[in-house]
């Protein structure tokens, strides 16, 4: 039997299985994960989101502190390619104010006499300066309209701030607070859960009771109380750190419990006893055998918990307990949608919700895929 390119089929198969035999747990997981289409798509979506957040200051035309007093509540501007049948490349028309003949509300309309091309990799206006990753000062932006023109891809808010910029800058907070919070939860939960699960006895009893006490507080009010305690004068960066601490302080008990139960079940495994008989000290037993044996489950658990943290942060900020303008997050942006009027006349202000929705959904699907791949030996 031969395959297309002439190599014997048996040899090809051998090569394939060889790869399988040499594959570590994580490689086997990756193989299984790649077969889960929805999870792969979600992972790509999340990667794009995170890249956008990391390069946020560059992609967003406006900085957090900039605003345009003349363009309050402006709807999304259209980007055109053709003017009167001629190809010009991407451009926007100028904006003029009109009154609606029925409601007398101020409205923006396109002034087709004025054409402003969109320039790519352009220097931004004054106030658009930023430090990339907090280190490299720059004012380079992905796109800007020519002098005098305005591009508001997602419209503006009631202070004339570009919503597109704010959604992207908000992603930096809304997407990173849950991840940093989760990492802190992981450290706390692993440490405390390991203590309880490995030593058992009175250590376990004490930790279990503490967990029960912490868990018996309702989560949202606890978040609210802790967030309300953040001084109003704090810098956004400090508020960010405090919020991650708050989120992890509230969510570690759940993880600690999972870790503890995993420890108790894995303690009875033969390969753990085998390692002990080999003379492995407790520290090696925990770090080399026990934690690796359930780490994949823990990671899955944490991925599945991130959506609730995204929603948690959004909720807190929406209620005005998290970050405050001009610092921004998706929750802060949604604060403006708490009036019926907004939804009726300025429905573009709901766009941030779409991003919350998409990222929560993507994390859930990715978690599903990870869960299916978590134990490649079964």
């Amino acid at each position, binding site marked *: 039997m031969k395959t297309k390119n002439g190599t014997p089929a048996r040899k090809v198969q051998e090569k394939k299985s060889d790869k*399988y035999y*040499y594959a570590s747990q994580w490689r086997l997981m990756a193989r299984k994960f790649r077969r889960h289409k929805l999870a792969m798509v979600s992972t790509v979506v999340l990667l794009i989101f995170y890249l956008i957040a990391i390069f946020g200051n560059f992609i967003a035309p406006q900085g957090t502190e900039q605003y345009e007093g003349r363009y309050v509540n402006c709807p999304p501007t259209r980007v055109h390619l053709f003017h009167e049948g001629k190809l010009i490349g991407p451009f926007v028309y100028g904006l003029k104010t009109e009154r609606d003949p029925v409601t007398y509300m101020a409205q923006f309309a396109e002034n087709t006499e004025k054409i402003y091309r969109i320039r790519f990799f352009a220097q931004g206006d004054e106030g658009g300066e930023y430090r990339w990753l907090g280190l490299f000062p720059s004012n380079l932006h992905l796109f800007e309209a020519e002098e005098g023109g305005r591009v508001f891809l997602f419209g503006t808010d009631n202070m004339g701030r570009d919503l597109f910029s704010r959604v992207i800058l908000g992603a930096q907070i809304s997407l990173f607070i849950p991840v940093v919070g989760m990492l802190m939860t992981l450290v706390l939960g692993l440490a405390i859960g390991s203590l309880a699960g490995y030593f058992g006895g009175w250590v376990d009893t004490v930790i279990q009771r503490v967990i029960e006490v912490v868990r018996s507080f309702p989560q949202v009010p606890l978040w609210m109380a802790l967030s309300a305690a953040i001084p109003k004068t704090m810098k956004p960066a400090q508020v960010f750190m405090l919020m991650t601490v708050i989120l992890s302080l509230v969510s570690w008990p759940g993880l600690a419990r999972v870790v503890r139960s995993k420890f108790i079940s894995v303690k009875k495994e033969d*390969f753990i006893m085998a390692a002990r*008989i*080999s*003379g492995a000290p407790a520290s090696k037993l925990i770090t080399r055998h026990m934690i*690796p*044996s359930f780490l994949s489950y823990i990671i899955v658990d944490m991925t599945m918990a991130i959506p609730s943290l995204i929603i948690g942060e959004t909720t807190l900020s929406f209620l005005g307990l998290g970050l405050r303008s001009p610092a921004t997050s998706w929750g802060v942006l949604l604060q403006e949608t708490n009036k019926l009027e907004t939804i009726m006349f300025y429905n573009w202000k709901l766009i941030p919700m779409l991003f919350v929705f998409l990222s929560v959904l993507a994390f859930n699907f990715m978690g599903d895929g990870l869960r299916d791949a978590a134990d490649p030996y079964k």
Partner: protein
Amino acid sequence: MDNVLLEIRNLSKVYDSKGVSVRALSDVNLTVMRGETIGIVGESGCGKTTLGRCVVRGIDATSGEVLFHTEDGVIDFLKATGAQMKKYRKDIQMIFQDPYASLDPRMTVFDIISEPLRYNTRMSAKEIEQAVDRIAEQVGLNKAYLRRYPHAFSGGQRQRIGIARSLILQPKLIVCDEAVSALDVSIQAQIINLLEDLQKEYHLTYLFISHALSVVRHISDRVMVMYLGRMVEFGETEALFAHPMHPYTQALLSAVPQPDPDISVDRIILEGEVPNPANPPSGCHFHPRCAYATERCRTEAPPLVNHDGRLVACWECGKCQGKT
């Protein structure tokens, strides 16, 4: 140096759980000589595995001593200090029953086999590699496969990996806990031959725990029969298999399948079931199922009595001799 390797004295293990205590092992005594193989048999739940695990300190015994005869004199392995453990841990190793559960699936075969060396010796990376290569060859593992993970191997190959791991420290005693029970019969034979070869080469001592009586008969020098956590009979393998003295041993041996269809066997069918170890019968644990039980058996536990080198725990020892 005397010829005794290990003395197990009054070893007991009680499992306590929510007010119910189960005596898995009660006052077991056993003297193990250097280089011999002791078979430990009994039905499920009789305490064979608990005995093995207590001896290697895989679990902590409730009371009793495991006296280990070393160059530095006799030490109690169960109460050994940190420094003593460091020195003698490597002398008592174990082969596990389930070759699938006893290998960490997240480590390569090389890491699994070399792990004991990392904890017990100060060998360089190169020395470790040589030691692993040597042992792999001895147990019949292809060197080229050492960088693979356990999931790439069959049951028999995995058991070879487990044997290599237990051998790499050159121990004096190996507890084989049902070491071949999970394998196919043909593979069983291979592994048993391997164990025998290794025993000759390294002058190993085995505690061979198994419920497979034919295997035990083949490999053991002496056999210990257990019932509900107690030793009921102990003696030379051939003598014990030819003339079992305890009624339980008789019943157990009569259950061995006979390959020759022309030989008819009088099966001794035991009545009743294995009693609940949490609430064992009074006196001799075996009396509710024993055909020869008397009033004395119901109230007093029989001591082990020496009958010409055979230890038997039975009040009515003479009675049933004509039967076999």
